[in-house]
């Protein structure tokens, strides 16, 4: 399923990173924590040249109306947001160095599908 990620024309290169096509913040956090430094680095280096194009492509659609065809690349961009500090600040450490136990931090918005941009604070 994940390996059959749909992508818009021009973004075929991202298909090999379908593992990071993850809808929710909780899924992306878990995947990042389980990944190796090498894997994070490979993902970061491979996605960086595409990231602006991915955002520009997704910006063609109103927020909340992202078609299924584009959700995969947007989810990959979101995984990049999750992973980037680990490459840019933490020397590739898949965890946050010198930090509290991550599994004890509960994200109230953690199971939302991020592309929907739901208001996470308060009633739904």
């Amino acid at each position, binding site marked *: 399923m994940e390996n059959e990620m749909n992508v818009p024309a021009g973004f075929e290169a991202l298909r090999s990173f379908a593992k990071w096509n993850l809808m929710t913040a909780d899924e992306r956090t878990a995947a990042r924590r389980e990944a190796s430094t090498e894997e994070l680095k490979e993902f970061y280096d491979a996605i960086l040249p595409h990231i602006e194009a991915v955002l520009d492509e997704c910006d063609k659609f109103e927020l909340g109306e992202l078609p299924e065809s584009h959700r995969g690349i947007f989810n990959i961009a979101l995984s*990049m*947001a999750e992973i980037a500090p680990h490459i840019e600040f933490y020397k590739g450490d898949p965890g946050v160095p010198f930090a509290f136990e991550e599994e004890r931090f509960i994200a109230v918005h953690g199971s939302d599908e991020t592309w929907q941009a739901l208001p996470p604070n308060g009633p739904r």
Partner: protein
Amino acid sequence: MAVQTSSTEKDPGRWARKYPELGQEPLPVSPYIDPEYYEKEKAKIFKKEWLYVALEREVPSPGSYKVRRIDAADTSIIIMRGKDNVIRAFHNACSHRGNTVVTEKGQETYGKNRAGVVTCRFHGWVYDAKGGLVSVPQEDRFYSCFDKKDNGLTEVHCDTWAGFIFVNVDPNPVKPLNEFLGGYADHFGGFDYDTCDHGFTYHTTLDCNWKVASDAFAEAYHVDTIHAGSFPNVFEGAIEDVELFGAHRTCSVRLQVENLPQTPIGDLANERSRGSLAAVGGASTLPPTLNPNRDEDWGFELSVLFPSVLLHVSEGIWFTHQFWPIAHDKTLWEGKYYLKKPRTHSELWGFERAMVLQRNAWLEDTATMEDTYRAMLSGAKKYQHLQDEEILIRHNCKVVDDYVDS
């Protein structure tokens, strides 16, 4: 000359000079670890003072309600908007045999009833949004001494400021909310909190006293060491603009603009959104009381809304840390970060990156708290030493002491 004056003002000890009544002496550790001290805090602070429990928009329309658990006041509170649009607050306790009327799903429970009533699950007693008991199944089987009109929900004091809802569970008359807030309300009231209606929330329960947790966020001295990972050299300067407002307090945290990290994803996120504190933000959303000189290096305002809320305001961003004591050695921490509703996928993505970095910084912050508390329990250190930059903590120790001794 102006430069000289300014450098004198910045000499070490400037906050102690501004607030000599706070003293400079080491402060005892016992208020953090003594269960009896905590019992006094419950009785004299959490059961006597105004507590921030919700935003008005969390109860958006008639019949909307939120239930907030407040362990430190031994209760949970129903906050409900009535058909008259008035927000009222009640103990979540049924007049029948004391069950919670709204079944709680955790520390915060949200709901809405179109008829504007809440119904106890246990035996079906129904209360309206003014707290009145409107229906009791099998009412005729109760005795003649029972009267519905005497058995509404127990109302608690409830008032609002700048979109924030406060309650005070003291059954006696209390000083008005605006008197409690005093100058703090003027300082922060001009920011439009309501326009930041997007955001994220994290929470965790920490094995430490609530003041250990609150203190750890209430100074910028730790940033160099604790946030060397997520905010390297970004907020390493001294705090400015310290002001005390009765029990409340504030300061501004400054950016080291020249040290702002330049990284590909960080830069792109900051280009496409205003979500992260670690970027020069401007002042388009700030009232004149915040960053009054419109300094470029003004990062955000860090304030303590007594007793246990830290409210921060930055350009287009505001966030709170709230510390809910559960026991003398257990604290629920909630971090809530608010941003303007994103307009594009780019902006949403930038917010995601800001959220991730902020979460990681909070993971760095919370890392010390249980360790600090365990070390305090050892009894090895009877006193803690606070430097001038930790003046907000010193103020808190004094204010809490004053309440406890009152």
